[in-house]
């Protein structure tokens, strides 16, 4: 072996090492996502078409918003099973309110929409508040508290509308918001990005963010440090409820009707999955919202890609399950390499 060869080898090894260090720093998810996107662009040109990108972004945004709320609660050491139910109830409340307002104040779309949106957000906040009080004041484990409130919320949603979709939303709510595209991107994406920015700021620059991480990391330490953990735990659940309600509104505007079927276990499981794949720890204290957003995009693209590639829809769950496990396993291997045992 000549000196030059050795040099080259070591330099390419150096590159590799730089690459692996870079991956270590940012995690495996961005890498997987890039590979997935590039691969799909090459395999199937329709993937990068405007319509398809719009679809992906819209789905990813909706998922990301619930997942943000879920992540916040998980970071604070809790669990929110009720998000799906809140999405459903908020959707119905919004639709029912708008329908009623539509007859009470005909033609005043702005007012009608404002009332509907307010009612939906209020619903989310209320359920979140109940969750928070159960957890922080009654000291019920978040899992059980939100399991209970999920059951109650879904029950209420069913009673309100008997599961029949609620129509009669102002047309402008659907066309100018739900299905709208602003500068080529779907409206939902703007909402999601705005929420992401706010949350990232909250995490880094506010006491609320700091305290939620502290409570999730070691709640006794937080108490002893003089943090009134109750208030902040309640805040986490309220924000999660609020974000679930936002998701309900987005879906309502997209579909054009209030639907109880929006909720359900799927939304709840997916929101937890997106958060956990995005690096949020179920034991609390750890997680970043940017990664949760990436993971929501990843999951949305994955299912879109499987459909575009015309994978039999019965095999898709198998694929998704395997990829889920592999992605997290890869990330775990990376982490074990870099941090100690």
């Amino acid at each position, binding site marked *: 072996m000549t000196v030059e060869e050795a040099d080259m080898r070591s330099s390419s090894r150096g590159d590799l090492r730089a690459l692996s260090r870079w991956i270590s720093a940012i995690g495996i998810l961005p890498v997987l996502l890039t590979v997935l996107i590039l691969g799909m662009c090459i395999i199937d040109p*329709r*993937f990068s*078409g405007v*319509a*398809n990108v719009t*679809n992906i972004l819209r*789905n990813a945004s909706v998922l990301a918003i619930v997942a943000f709320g879920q992540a916040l609660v998980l970071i604070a050491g809790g669990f929110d099973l009720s998000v799906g139910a809140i999405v459903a109830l908020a959707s119905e409340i919004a639709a029912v309110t708008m329908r009623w307002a539509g007859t009470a104040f005909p033609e005043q779309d702005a007012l009608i929409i404002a009332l509907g949106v307010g009612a939906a957000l209020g619903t989310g906040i209320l359920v979140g508040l109940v969750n928070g009080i159960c957890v922080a004041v009654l000291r019920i484990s978040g899992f059980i508290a939100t399991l209970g409130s999920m059951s109650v919320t879904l029950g209420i949603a*069913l009673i309100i509308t*008997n*599961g*029949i*979709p609620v*129509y009669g939303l102002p047309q402008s709510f*659907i066309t100018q918001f739900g*299905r709208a595209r602003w500068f080529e991107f779907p409206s939902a994406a703007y909402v999601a990005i705005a929420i992401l920015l706010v949350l990232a700021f909250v995490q880094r620059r506010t006491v609320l963010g700091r305290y939620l991480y502290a409570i999730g990391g070691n709640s006794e330490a937080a108490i002893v440090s003089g943090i009134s953990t109750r208030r902040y735990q309640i805040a986490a659940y309220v924000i999660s409820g609020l974000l679930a309600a936002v998701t309900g509104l987005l*879906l309502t505007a*997209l*579909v*054009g*009707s209030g*639907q*109880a*079927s*929006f909720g*359900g276990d*799927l939304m709840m499981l997916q929101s937890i999955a997106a958060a956990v794949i995005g690096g949020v720890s179920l034991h609390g204290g750890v997680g970043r919202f940017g990664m949760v957003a990436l993971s929501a995009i990843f999951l949305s693209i994955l*299912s*879109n890609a499987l*459909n*575009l*590639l*015309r994978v039999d*829809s*019965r095999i898709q769950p198998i694929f998704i399950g395997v990829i889920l496990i592999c992605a997290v396993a890869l990330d775990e291997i990376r982490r074990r390499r870099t941090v100690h045992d």
Partner: protein
Amino acid sequence: ASAGDAKWYPFKMNDASADTVKVVDYSPVEKAEKRHKICVLFPHMKDSFWVAVAYGITEQSKALGVNMNLYEAGGYDNLPKQLSQFDDCVASGADAIVIGVISTVGVAKQVLAAKAKSIPVIAVTNSFISRDLTAGVFVDLKSMASASANALLASVKAGEAANVVTFPGPAGSGWAETMNKDFETVVANNPNVKTLSSKFGDTGVAVQLQLVQDALQAYPSMNYIWGTAPTAEAAIGALAEAGRSDVKIISTYENQAMLDALKRGDITAFTTQYPVIEGRVAIDQAVRILDKKPFIRLVQPIAGVIDKTTMGKMDMSTVLAPASWSPVYSVKQ
């Protein structure tokens, strides 16, 4: 006067008790002889389809003067819950049980046990073939599938190539798979019609929306969507957004949204099995059995196709509950 007072009978239905199916004019009894207690079990009450069945059941219970209690299991994946609700019905001393089964054979053993206690069991809406069943009123899924397939074939213009993507419903439900197969068998007769793919998925609008959107991308040549009512509902928006006014939608079952969409011309047709009538007949059968009157063991609604042309002629109170009606879970006399 509520719609319940409207005289819906005689109603043309199939008597499928014998080997050869014959058409009959179905008419109910006037009044029950006693205030029987009838227990009704539903898979769920989460869409206007089952609400329509419930409407029929409630109205007929009132009309005949019987007590009725309705329980829903909360969804198609809650078979164990339905089983225990069945047991609870037996335990609470029901005279007869009307059931929309979650799973065909799932409740077979429960039915056998009820038979041993001589509690009649009447299957409603969801197909259930069993020797132990006392009576049943449900449509033949095959005929539903073929009715909707024929509706699709009818709307295909001569020489037009129809590329269909089907959205039958949740994988693993049984009925979705069955209808999909029957649909494919029927359309296979027409060489111009091609089924590109079948996309299974839960019957929520959000889930179906994603499936339709992806299918629009994956199958650019798709110009027919055949699927569940939520699929159709989702597809309307998705097609409008994609600017694909050329794609036609056929729904495999009925709900309020389908009716509205048909009125607006957003969908081409939907099929109906007259769920309200099914509910009414089920209660009538139960009363006949308890009063020891003659009854038809297996009554099948004749699947109907509702499109622009038939819509005006149809009495919609046989298809859906009035919009103002809200479900009643018990009727006490």
